[in-house]
């Protein structure tokens, strides 16, 4: 297997994909194990938490819907920072990070839309409404799909990286729109109730399970992102080796 044994002495060494692979190989089992433990604790807390006096048992959907929505935005923010890494610093891992994060972000955004829709039916009386919050998250989902398509459409990795980075940065304007949509426009969606000036409006008996679940899904995201980045580095090595093999075959034929 391709070499993964270069030592890591400082954070800057992680710019080297070989050193990143060495770190990822060691970190992935630990981070994945942590995600499983925190999510198990979070699920246990979520199903032991009291029902909401108005929403009843459907409040349990909050413990997955809200972390999915947070991660949908966190993942895109990470991709925007990676895009800066590609365009400004030409960091060798920045494009790998962006490309690897996009499918994970798309899944979390899709799950936020699906669980929100399932929660909306009993609480609002409708599966879907084209209001500011729901529409802006749907636009985020479409942007993820567009970036996934773009990163795989061009054969030249350098051109694909720059194009994806520019589109990702332009699309970042949607993140504050999603966050503040509930304040700027009339919407069925409730306003911010955890991260807000004046503190959370949720009772601690419901807030703590939510925070633990959010932490668990965030750690899961880190594990999945590390795994997807490792795959992407290997994919690039495989392509480079296949080209090398093709050139050797051509030179032998001549």
């Amino acid at each position, binding site marked *: *297997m*391709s*070499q993964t*044994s*270069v030592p890591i002495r400082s954070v800057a060494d992680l710019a*080297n*994909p*070989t050193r990143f692979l060495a770190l990822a190989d060691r970190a992935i089992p630990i981070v994945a194990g942590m995600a499983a433990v925190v999510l198990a604790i979070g699920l246990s807390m979520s199903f032991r938490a009291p029902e909401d006096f108005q929403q*009843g*048992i*459907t409040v*349990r*959907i909050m413990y*997955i*819907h809200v972390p*999915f929505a947070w991660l949908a935005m966190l993942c895109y923010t990470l991709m925007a920072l990676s895009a800066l890494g590609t365009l400004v610093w030409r960091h*060798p891992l920045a494009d790998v990070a962006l490309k690897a994060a996009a*499918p*994970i972000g798309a*899944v979390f955004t*899709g*799950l936020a839309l*699906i*669980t929100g829709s*399932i*929660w909306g*039916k*009993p609480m609002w009386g409708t599966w879907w409404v084209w209001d500011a919050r729901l529409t802006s998250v749907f636009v985020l989902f479409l942007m993820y799909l567009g970036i996934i398509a773009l990163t795989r459409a061009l054969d030249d990795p350098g051109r694909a990286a720059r194009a994806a980075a520019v589109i990702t940065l332009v699309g970042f304007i949607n993140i504050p729109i999603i966050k503040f949509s509930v304040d700027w426009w009339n919407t069925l969606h409730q306003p911010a109730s955890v991260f807000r000036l004046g503190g959370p409006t949720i009772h601690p008996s419901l807030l703590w399970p939510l925070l633990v679940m959010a932490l668990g899904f965030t750690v*899961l995201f880190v594990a*999945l992102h590390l*795994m*997807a980045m*490792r*795959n992407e*580095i*290997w*994919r*690039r*090595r*495989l392509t*480079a*080796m*296949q080209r*090398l*093999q093709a050139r*050797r075959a051509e030179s032998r034929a001549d």
Partner: protein
Amino acid sequence: MSPHLLYVTAAYGLSLAGLVALVGWILLDHRTLKRSLAALEARGVRRRADARHGSDA
């Protein structure tokens, strides 16, 4: 099963299905890449960086 419990079950079930599909896709991709790289290396194909004892990717 109460109608509200049905909504909760559907939300958790679909989320589990989505996450299992994502993890499965990443693991399958990992296995396919690992096998392809091992097959190329078995045929003696080495990256120039590996030939120089891996100073870069």
